[in-house]
């Protein structure tokens, strides 16, 4: 056999130095299911052997095998079906042996054992012990294949049965299921084991997920069990490190799927890592940290596809850096149990009694909040909790001693970072975001490591990206120079936005000339950029009509350019309507859409007289002014109740809430329209602004169509505006092709509807810049200010929305920044800050600065505040 030849070919050293350090490597299912991945494992083992280390490699079962074994176990009553499924599984392994260039017969012993197990007299009962023994075959097979393959590559590898080294211990409250399916071990560093192994070889392969209980029966380590096995071996061998090789680069400051600019966490201490793993990160099972923490063995998370990347190191002491929030995470499906009673806490032992009830029902409490008359605890979504009867029985027992209420489904949002309380004063924006939702519990432990908010699950949509962005803005996460934070996910994945060439970079000289002519501050609009954006939107094949939301920038030349590009105009006031009519007298009324909000009646009268499309966003005007709408086609603007809009308090109090008719009131709106004699021909929803997530567009389009389908007179779906424009460097632009594909997909499901959009910002934001001159500079303590003649009267977005606009020194575009400065305007308001902490080359009086992405809601929102006058606007179609 191949194995023997290679065995002889290796340069095995007869005696291994007993002080040789061990490294434990762990590889999951996807890493052991392909030949090239095994070659990679061999390479990594060789590297460590060459560095003078001994290696124990822990492997999972091949991808899908554990599930297949579970399925076999579920067939325990059907011997024939079990046998057939077992044969299929054996065949899968034999064929993989073939792929590895091995003789499939090497699996005969394992195959025999599997056949025995399905034919076992214990099988029909399907008991836990039998199940565990059956499931163990996955890892036993994969490690057997691995051992032979590694030897075939010339590595001298010994196969170890993990069960000979890992023994589970009895838990205080342990069901049969837990004993066999979720066992725990407590390995202590053992010099004897080290020496015994080193006497045999320097490289070993063994199984993850499996161990033995006291009487020698096979047990499983539960979910994430292979990570735990690696950690156990690390502890047992006093390894110099455990490396978990997986398919992601490490732990991140947030789930990269939700937050593409989440940052890789280079180094964490055990406590932080444990907290992050427990509160959301899926990369490492939290159980895997305990054993290495006890023995102070470093644990590294490494990416199989990117072996050169540093990954995450979990070590006894983290890097010394300013306090920072390492991660924000979210757990859904949290159940709160609120226990209310007057004055009960004075009773000695009351809480002990209460917690005894939880214990009796096998439920472990996670978070706790208390007041004089209330104690509220959280329960994680365990299998046990989903069992019919458990929560019911718990509440029944609790009701004997207090009033009990279940609050669910909830989501727990956790910030993790050592020294949380020292950062409280910088969490203002974040707390405001959280506070806009229904918060049921806040918890902060005395070890100062976390801060958790339990909110309604329905309010949790989108909260992680929002909080992560707030943390970045507050420089609590990923601040410049903080060594904990590595590259962002999108940078690692190569999805980072390519540095876009901005039109004003190429037109630097012309802009400087312009600045020499025009009195600053003034706006410059690039007609070519407007045309280019219009072209992109015209290329969306799923869209039937496009209306430009002129409130973004009603400059007459922009209206003309967009009308020429085929766009209709969307107006929100009689003033805008008159402006469009004056600027574009030829534009037929059917290309104008009037979408007012709380406008006086006369404006509706004017719009209806003009014969333009009309959107109604209020039930009461249909009821109160029916004569206005008689015989008219109208669109209804709906609030789909997504995200914050779902929340009553926000709906009545938030700034977005005054728009739209609640989707639940659609029936009433239709009835009122019917009574008024109006016909509802379209449904409209505006999703917000700056949305870069395609899935969001698709979902909302789908929801609106699902609603519209029940209204036969509806022919149009208007998904509003809100197409995102990348703002900060590194943000990915919205892919128009992907957006079109998503919209087309929805349209195919609901072919009946025309699709309209009403973009504003997308068309003009990048086209406009503000040119402004430096007035004076100032130093105050550590802070340096650069004063410019533009201010919040010129561009109010930074003050109003905390919008970030890039600011550059126009004459020195290529020069690197030297100093961090506050770019401020001349208005007597402390909020008149255009840019905070900007890295700029030296600025002197009269230097020209350019403020980018100012084409939308810039001049349109300019004011005469402080009587500084309105900015001039220059439209250039040659730029």
């Amino acid at each position: 056999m191949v194995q023997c030849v290679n065995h002889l070919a290796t340069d095995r050293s007869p005696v291994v130095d007993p002080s040789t350090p061990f490294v434990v490597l762990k590889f999951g299912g996807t890493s052991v299911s392909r030949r090239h991945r095994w070659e990679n494992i061999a390479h990594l083992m060789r590297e460590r052997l060459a560095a003078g280390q001994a290696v124990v490699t822990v492997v999972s079962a091949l991808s899908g095998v554990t599930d297949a074994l579970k399925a076999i176990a579920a067939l325990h009553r059907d011997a024939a079906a079990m046998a057939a499924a077992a044969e299929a599984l054996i065949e899968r392994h034999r064929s993989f042996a073939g792929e590895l260039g091995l003789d499939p017969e090497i699996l005969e012993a394992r195959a025999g054992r599997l056949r025995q197990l399905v034919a076992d007299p214990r099988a029909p009962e399907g008991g836990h012990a039998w199940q565990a023994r059956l499931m163990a075959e996955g890892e036993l097979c994969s490690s057997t294949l691995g051992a032979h393959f590694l030897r075939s590559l010339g590595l001298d590898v010994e196969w170890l049965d993990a069960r000979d080294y890992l023994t589970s211990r009895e838990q205080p409250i342990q069901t049969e299921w837990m004993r066999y399916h979720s066992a725990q071990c407590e390995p202590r560093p053992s010099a004897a084991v080290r020496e015994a192994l080193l006497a045999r070889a320097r490289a070993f392969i063994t199984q993850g997920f499996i161990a033995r209980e006291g009487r020698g029966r096979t047990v499983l380590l539960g979910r994430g069990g292979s990570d735990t096995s690696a950690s156990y071996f690390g502890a047992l061998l006093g390894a110099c490190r455990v490396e978990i090789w997986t398919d992601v680069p490490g732990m991140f400051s947030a789930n990269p799927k939700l937050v593409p600019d989440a940052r890789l966490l280079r180094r964490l201490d055990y406590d932080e890592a444990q907290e992050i793993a427990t509160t959301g990160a899926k990369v490492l099972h939290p159980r895997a940290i305990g054993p290495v923490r006890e023995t102070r063995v470093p644990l590294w998370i490494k990416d199989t596809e990117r072996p050169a990347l540093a990954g995450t190191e979990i070590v006894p002491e983290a890097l010394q850096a300013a306090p920072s929030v390492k991660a924000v995470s979210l757990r859904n499906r949290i159940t709160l149990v609120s226990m209310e009673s007057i004055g009960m806490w004075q009773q000695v032992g009351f809480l002990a009694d209460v917690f005894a009830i939880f214990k009796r029902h096998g439920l472990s409490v996670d978070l706790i909040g208390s007041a004089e008359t209330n104690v509220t605890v959280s329960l994680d979504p365990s299998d046990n909790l989903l069992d019919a009867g458990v929560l019911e029985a718990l509440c029944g027992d609790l009701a004997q001693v207090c009033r009990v209420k279940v609050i669910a489904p909830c989501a727990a949002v956790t910030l993790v970072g050592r020294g949380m309380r020292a950062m409280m004063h910088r969490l203002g924006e974040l707390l405001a975001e959280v506070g806009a939702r229904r918060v049921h519990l806040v918890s902060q432990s005395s070890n100062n490591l976390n801060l958790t908010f339990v909110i309604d699950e329905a309010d949790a949509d989108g909260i992680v990206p929002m909080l992560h962005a707030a943390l970045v803005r507050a420089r609590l996460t990923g601040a410049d120079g903080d060594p904990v934070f590595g590259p962002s996910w999108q940078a690692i994945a190569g999805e980072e936005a390519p540095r876009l060439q901005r039109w004003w970079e190429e037109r630097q000289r012309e802009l400087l000339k312009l600045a020499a002519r025009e009195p600053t501050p003034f706006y410059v609009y690039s007609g070519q950029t407007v045309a280019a954006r219009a072209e992109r939107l015209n290329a969306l094949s799923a869209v039937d009509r496009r209306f430009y939301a002129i409130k973004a920038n009603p400059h007459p030349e922009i209206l003309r350019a967009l009308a020429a590009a085929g766009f209709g105009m969307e107006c929100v006031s009689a003033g805008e309507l008159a402006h469009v009519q004056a600027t574009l007298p030829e534009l037929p009324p059917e290309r104008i859409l009037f979408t007012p909000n709380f406008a006086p009646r006369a404006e509706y009268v004017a719009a209806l007289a003009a014969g333009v499309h009309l959107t109604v966003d209020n039930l009461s005007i249909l009821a109160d002014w029916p004569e206005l709408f008689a015989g008219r086609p109208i669109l209804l603007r709906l609030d789909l109740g997504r995200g914050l809009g779902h929340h009553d308090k926000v709906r009545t109090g938030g700034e977005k809430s005054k728009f739209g008719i609640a989707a639940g009131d659609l029936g009433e709106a239709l009835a009122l329209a019917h009574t008024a004699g109006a016909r509802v021909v379209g449904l409209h929803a505006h999703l917000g602004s700056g949305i870069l997530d395609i899935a969001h567009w698709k979902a909302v389009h789908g929801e609106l169509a699902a609603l519209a389908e029940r209204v036969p007179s509806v022919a149009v779906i208007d998904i509003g505006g809100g197409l995102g424009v990348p703002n900060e460097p590194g943000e990915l632009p919205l892919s128009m092709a992907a957006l079109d594909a998503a919209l087309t997909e929805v349209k195919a499901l609901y072919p009946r509807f025309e699709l309209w959009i009403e973009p504003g910002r997308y068309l003009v934001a990048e086209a406009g810049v503000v040119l402004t001159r430096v007035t004076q500079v100032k130093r105050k303590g550590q802070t340096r200010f650069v004063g410019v003649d533009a201010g919040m009267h010129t561009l109010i977005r930074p003050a109003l929305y905390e919008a970030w606009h890039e600011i550059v020194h126009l004459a020195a575009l290529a020069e690197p920044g030297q100093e961090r400065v506050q770019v401020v305007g001349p208005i007597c308001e402390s909020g008149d800050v255009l840019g905070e902490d900007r890295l700029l080359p030296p600025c002197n009086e009269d230097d020209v600065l350019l403020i980018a992405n100012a084409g939308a809601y810039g001049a349109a929102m300019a004011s005469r505040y402080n009587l500084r006058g309105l900015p001039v606007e220059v439209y250039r179609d040659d730029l």
Partner: protein
Amino acid sequence: MTISERPSAQRFRFTRAVYEAGVVELGYAFDEGPELIERISFPGAPESVPEGRGVAFARALALLHGIAGVSYYKALLPPEIIVDGEPFDAALAALLEQVYLHGLGEFAHENHLDLRGRIHFPAGPAAHAASELGLPRRALVPIGGGKDSLVSVELLRQAGEPFAVTWVGRSELIRACAVATGQPMLAIGRELAPELFELNRQGAWNGHIPVTAINSAILVCAALLYGYDAIVFSNEASASVGNLEHGGIEVNHQWSKGLVFENALAEYIDAHIAADLRYYSLLRPLSELAVAQRFAGLTRYHALFSSCNRNFRLLGERPSARWCGQCPKCRFVFLALAPFLAKPALLAIFGRNLLDEPEQIEGFEALAEFGAAKPFECVGEGRESRAAFARLAERADWREDVVVRHYAEAIAPAIAPPPDIATLLAPHGSHRIPERLWALLA
């Protein structure tokens, strides 16, 4: 812009119905206007009708032509109905009059119309009796992405019956449920005549139509084309109960899901189309609660299905992409499943707790038929909702939720005690389920 006058017509014409190469074309017209063509496509169906089934298929096609016409007829409600070619046979004409009158009951009520005496189908001679066609023993099971049909699927699987799941129209959500059943799938395409949308835009009458009747007729054609000997729907007992009375006629939102229609169609099929093609509803003797109880155990569908009356067709991971949480269907399914599921499992399905939202009180009162009529939706009977509430009011994990408290404090004292939930779970009432499957329910 103003809207034009409601369009009108004197005559509704059935112009033609043809099958060719997997596609049925159904033609209709108003007066001498352009033909409105509906297309139904049967993927992978034979080029022409299988031998020996020609006569039967011609009758099935006439049935489909007749029933599917209701979507167009109701747009203008012309006083006269004309069949351009051979008239419908007498039995079919009588069946169609029933389908149009009762199937448009809710439509008439909502539009304040009286259709009695208005709908007359010209009747041809009686059709010859149908013969047995030797159809293969396998069933077509229509699924809609909701809980009911998935309960049927599991019952049939349990009984070892050969069957395929089928649906009409494109829907990612239904497809995902179909895939999860692991059964063979048949996705039938249906395209309404685009002119109908134009008529709707111009202000044609619109409202609820008996879509189950249309789908049933489509499946009769499918059964003959592909060879199935049964069409198994999943309508429950409560579908036969009316919502209210309008102009002396009981109005039932789900009339074409009720037993009267089932019997009428099954008898017509048996007598005039194919004597060995069965049409029945497997859940007919079950209450909505009994179906909910069975569905509670089918956890593999819990994260996929939707019974919401917003017709969600996209696949969304979040519960809010499948459940609006604001319609009677969402409320009823939530309430009906609650007694049979662990509370966290139920809340995971919906992503929220509808029974702890004060603004839902009115909607749940309507389900319990307390102070309001049963909503025009496919929801269970009032006593089923009351029985579910009574059970929840006893449960310590539910009774503090606002709607449950409202039931206990404001509704329960004002109504007769509802029947115990257990009494509503036993099969009852008439049905057409074959003997060999009856044991599944008993």
